[in-house]
């Protein structure tokens, strides 16, 4: 990494040189980019050498380091921080760009989401890159629809709080399927929702969900020709099914045989420590990472059902975002009816939030204080790393 940073300072055109002659795939999103990068890399390793930033070092220094590490590899699969995507597209000229979702995340250091989507859109407009994009996220659809060629994939987007207003004109966006997530709140009248079918559309300018060529349907990915592929993932939850669906479409775009790719996907059991079960001698803990409200929605989806206990650990250091306001965008009512522990440097922020959500909880110092012997632990970035260090 430090080597990568130094190298970039000495040779600003380095990424262009390092990717010349390689088949490059760039993956960007708010959530799921590390896992999707891992899935695509796993499938490509079957074909040849792969350079990839597997551990989430997703800015240019991390890209340079990964490319140097595997200097002879035919493929490069690069996870890219959302803000850096325009620059990376220009410097690495990827064959495929994979865009999955955009939602509020670390707002104390991130650009405004709409601005980010606009920058993606501009960068994609004349890039010549083939885009594989999730058509279920209006911000992604807006960004990707400027590209010359797009394979639209419907892989779901449960988080909607950043897309009630049209990214093109600001008009109201109607969704076909309503949900009941807003806490303590009466839902909008049914008249404001489109009556049937899948998708979303702006009521004013008509900007609507692009028709998908590929789609995720439960545990299966349905191809344009109607054929379908079963995902037999060991990674849990619908978010990972979404990641695998879009990774499979990338494999198809690269001309790979899909059955072997699926077999590679199925071998993966954890990604950078996520979903790993660890023991500290007194208890067994399954580690889940959730860094932002959309990520929490997906973490709830993989929790063992109540009354199975849950510990939550929240920090607010630089890499986490120093603003804990996002806790109020998570609907913690999902944790009712089970033992819940609040931990981390910002456990009081969490305590106020849980109390307001009507969740019974206990505030503890660290995982050593947990009185359950089998527990799911959800943590944000540095809290997650701390727990991994604690269990060694």
């Amino acid at each position, binding site marked *: 990494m430090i080597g990568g940073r130094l190298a970039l300072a000495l040779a600003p055109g380095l990424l262009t040189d390092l990717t010349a002659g390689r088949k490059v795939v760039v993956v960007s999103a708010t959530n799921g980019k590390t896992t999707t990068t891992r899935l695509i890399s796993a499938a490509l390793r079957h074909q040849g050498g792969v350079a990839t930033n597997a551990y989430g070092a997703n800015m240019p220094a991390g890209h340079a380091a990964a490319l140097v590490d595997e200097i002879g590899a035919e493929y490069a699969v690069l996870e890219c921080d959302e803000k850096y995507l325009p620059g990376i597209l220009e410097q690495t000229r990827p064959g495929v760009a994979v865009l999955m979702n955009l939602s*509020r995340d670390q*707002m*104390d*250091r991130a650009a*405004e*989401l*709409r*601005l980010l989507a606009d920058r993606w859109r501009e960068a994609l407009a004349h890039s010549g890159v083939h885009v594989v994009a999730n058509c279920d996220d209006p911000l992604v659809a807006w960004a990707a629809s400027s590209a010359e060629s797009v394979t639209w994939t419907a892989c779901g987007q449960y988080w909607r*709080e950043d897309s*009630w*207003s049209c990214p093109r004109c*600001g*008009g*109201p966006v109607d969704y076909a399927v309503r949900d009941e997530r*807003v*806490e*303590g*709140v*009466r839902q*909008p*009248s049914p008249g*404001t929702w489109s009556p049937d079918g899948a998708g979303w559309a702006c*009521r004013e300018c008509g900007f609507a969900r692009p028709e998908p060529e590929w789609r995720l349907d439960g545990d299966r990915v349905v191809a344009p020709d109607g054929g379908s592929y079963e995902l037999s993932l060991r990674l849990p939850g619908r978010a990972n099914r979404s990641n695998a669906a879009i990774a499979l479409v990338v494999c198809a775009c690269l001309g790979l045989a899909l059955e072997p790719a699926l077999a590679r996907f199925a071998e993966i059991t954890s990604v950078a420590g996520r979903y790993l079960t660890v023991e500290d001698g007194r208890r067994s803990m399954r580690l889940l990472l959730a860094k932002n409200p959309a990520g929490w929605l997906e973490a709830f989806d993989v929790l063992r059902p109540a009354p199975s206990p849950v510990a939550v650990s929240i920090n607010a250091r*630089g890499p986490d975002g*120093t*603003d*804990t*306001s*996002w*806790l*109020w*965008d998570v609907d913690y009512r999902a944790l009712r009816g089970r033992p819940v522990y609040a931990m981390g440097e910002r456990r*009081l*922020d969490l*305590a*106020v*939030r849980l*109390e*307001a*959500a009507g969740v019974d909880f206990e505030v503890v110092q660290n995982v050593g204080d947990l009185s359950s012997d089998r527990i799911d632990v959800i943590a944000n970035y540095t809290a997650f790393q701390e727990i991994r260090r604690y269990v060694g």
Partner: protein
Amino acid sequence: MSVNTSNELRLIWVYPDLLSTYGDQGNVIMLARRAQLRGIAAEVVPVRSDEPVPTGGDVYLLGGGEDRPQVLAARRLRADGGLARAAEAGAVLFGVCAGYQLLGEEFAGEEGQPVAGLGLLDIRSERGEQRAVGEVAAQLDPDIAGEMVEGGAPAVRSLTGFENHQGLTRRGPGVRPLARTLTGIGNGDGTDGAYHDHFIGTYLHGPVLARNPALADHLLTLVVGHSLPPVASWADRLHQERLNAVLAGKTRPVCKVQADAEPTGTRRHRHHAPGTCTTSPR
């Protein structure tokens, strides 16, 4: 005071589709919860920007928003007129960040152009040169803090929260500053927020009412017209912990504002005078 004749408190969450950037739901939830803890039934009514703003609410909450949604929200609120009618009827208005700016006479749009606000607070906002991001600690204006004490809420005179904006706000003679900043930027002149009558605004965004339960209780007191019994909650502990952490200088540059320095409200962009700010190590 308001046109709501039922016993239930109606909390109108104005335009969550445009003005809900980061934790704004927190203010709605806290207000409802603190009412319910006093045995006052409370209903939260989110009103999307394609719906008319009902006039029968007791409290109207306006959250933070990005530039373009803020401009759209101002345009739609002006065209709709419901919020202005509710304000005239005596409803309590609480705006944070973009919601605070648009209660004023004018604010800056996407390109920095002046955009007409709702004209309910005598403030004008423009775009500063740099973003103000970080924890804020401030001392409440003595007048409003005094009302809080009279209202039966705990004798809290401080305000804490998180700001993330690029606005500079000048106050006219028709408002008082909500608080005097101890750390952070706020309005940009050593104060944060503004209030007049039942209209209150602050740059402290998202769950500012969760961080400052006394302010939440103050809004409720304005509606019910009498003092509320104190309630125990984790929010009091959080308030104190954050205040201590921020004043210990752990999280951001500390600007010492002299107690006797009366901000004029006409100074522009006076972020920190040299020598009065120190950046603490993280």
